[in-house]
């Protein structure tokens, strides 16, 4: 039902609703960026990314969604571990990733990382567990990096680390249901 207060939520409101994180708590001390393992490879280091979100400007929000940073974050949780205000940047970034996909503005530099995640989930969806060979085959087909890691594979096989047939669980239908209900 429409109420007097109803309006289309702004991107900042959507982000807060998704993540539960108040970006205004950040006072730009920069500890997150100083400790971030991936910051040297990022276009927007974590504290810069939060600053852009604080402005509330649609252009700044768009810049964050299009950044390579949100895909480079490995979720090591160092930033929140050191944040004096406990701003949960990894959680924010998880929400930003899904927004970026919905808005269709994913950084082209994130292409391989996303193809990896999709290949990973593809294998889990098929079997209930990750088949590492299954994952690598799908990843190679998606990226066409056909010769990547051909030097590692024989060693893995010889050391018994690369089972050829993925294990499939009995509750495969339950997994199908979970993927379906999660829209994954």
């Amino acid at each position, binding site marked *: 039902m429409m109420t007097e207060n109803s309006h289309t939520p702004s991107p900042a409101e959507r982000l807060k609703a998704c993540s539960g994180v108040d970006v205004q708590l950040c006072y730009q001390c920069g500890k997150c960026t100083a400790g971030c393992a991936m910051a040297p490879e990022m276009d927007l280091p974590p504290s810069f990314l939060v600053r852009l979100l604080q402005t509330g400007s649609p252009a700044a929000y768009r810049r964050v969604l299009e950044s390579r940073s949100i895909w*480079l974050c*490995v979720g090591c949780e160092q930033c929140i571990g050191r944040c004096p205000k406990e701003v949960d940047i990894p959680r924010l970034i998880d929400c930003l990733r899904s927004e970026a996909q919905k808005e269709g503005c994913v950084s082209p530099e994130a292409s391989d990382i996303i193809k*990896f995640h999709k290949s990973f989930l593809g294998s*889990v969806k098929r079997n209930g567990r990750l088949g*590492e060979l299954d994952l690598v085959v799908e990843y190679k087909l998606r990226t066409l990096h056909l010769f990547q890691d051909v030097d590692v594979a024989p060693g893995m096989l010889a050391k018994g680390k690369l089972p050829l047939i993925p294990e499939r669980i009995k509750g495969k239908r*339950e*997994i199908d*249901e979970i993927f379906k*209900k999660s829209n994954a």
Partner: protein
Amino acid sequence: MKETGFYPGCSLQATSREYNESVRALARHLSLPLREIEDWNCCGATAAHSMNHELALALPARVLALAEAQGMEEIVVPCAACYGRLATTHHTLVTDETLRQKTCDTIGMEYSGKLKILNAVQWIEQYVEPLLANAVTHPINRKMACYYGCLLVRPHKVLQFDRVEDPQSMDRLCALCGSEPVDWAFKTECCGAGLSISRTQSVGRLSGAILSDAAERGAEAIIVACPMCHSNLDMRRPAANRSLGQKLDIPVLFITQLIGLALGIPRKELGLDRHFVPVPQW
């Protein structure tokens, strides 16, 4: 002795088989009962929480609910990444009733939240450590750098395990095995984790820095409790060495392998021949 549920996770069936083998070897050797959760599924790892929040909760929730339904009161999760996903999901489900109901509906199972989730180090502290003093027959008199990585200790608010910046638990266990833990700077720095395949050069840079600090401090091996840390420091050694421009041959062992050696368990049972960087005879 109380039975502990066991969640191996996907890595322990493949890339990190030796972690699985060495956990089971310790349990066998010390008569500690472990029971694998029947029909467990993948926790979803980084891929699920990067792509879909609901899925990232539902996949671990099914594992937790299975353990409860199978009568388990506590489970051990040796993979630090799986442990992080399971513990975070447990925390979310017990603190957010709306999400708990929604997730239980997605998985079609109930979860009360009474389950206790242990990482490998906590399981060792609880069950192995009390027996160590009498069981160590082959003290490993070497210098070790204990590498905790990210997901064993962070986020601290959720996991409440050890000290977040300078953890000590594995250092203490090393000392009980006769080794000398070195003081170093990269205990909880990230190895590059799930970027191993999609961005190998980043993993080379980060793992290279870790290996190089450990070697400079005189460590003769690095001790880990995470399959991703292990494969990035061991299997990705060529990328790390390329990034460093030198050839480091410092071996990387799981904490369970080090303890196994100190207990005199044969190397083969501990899967020590499965590493890419050879582990010398100590």
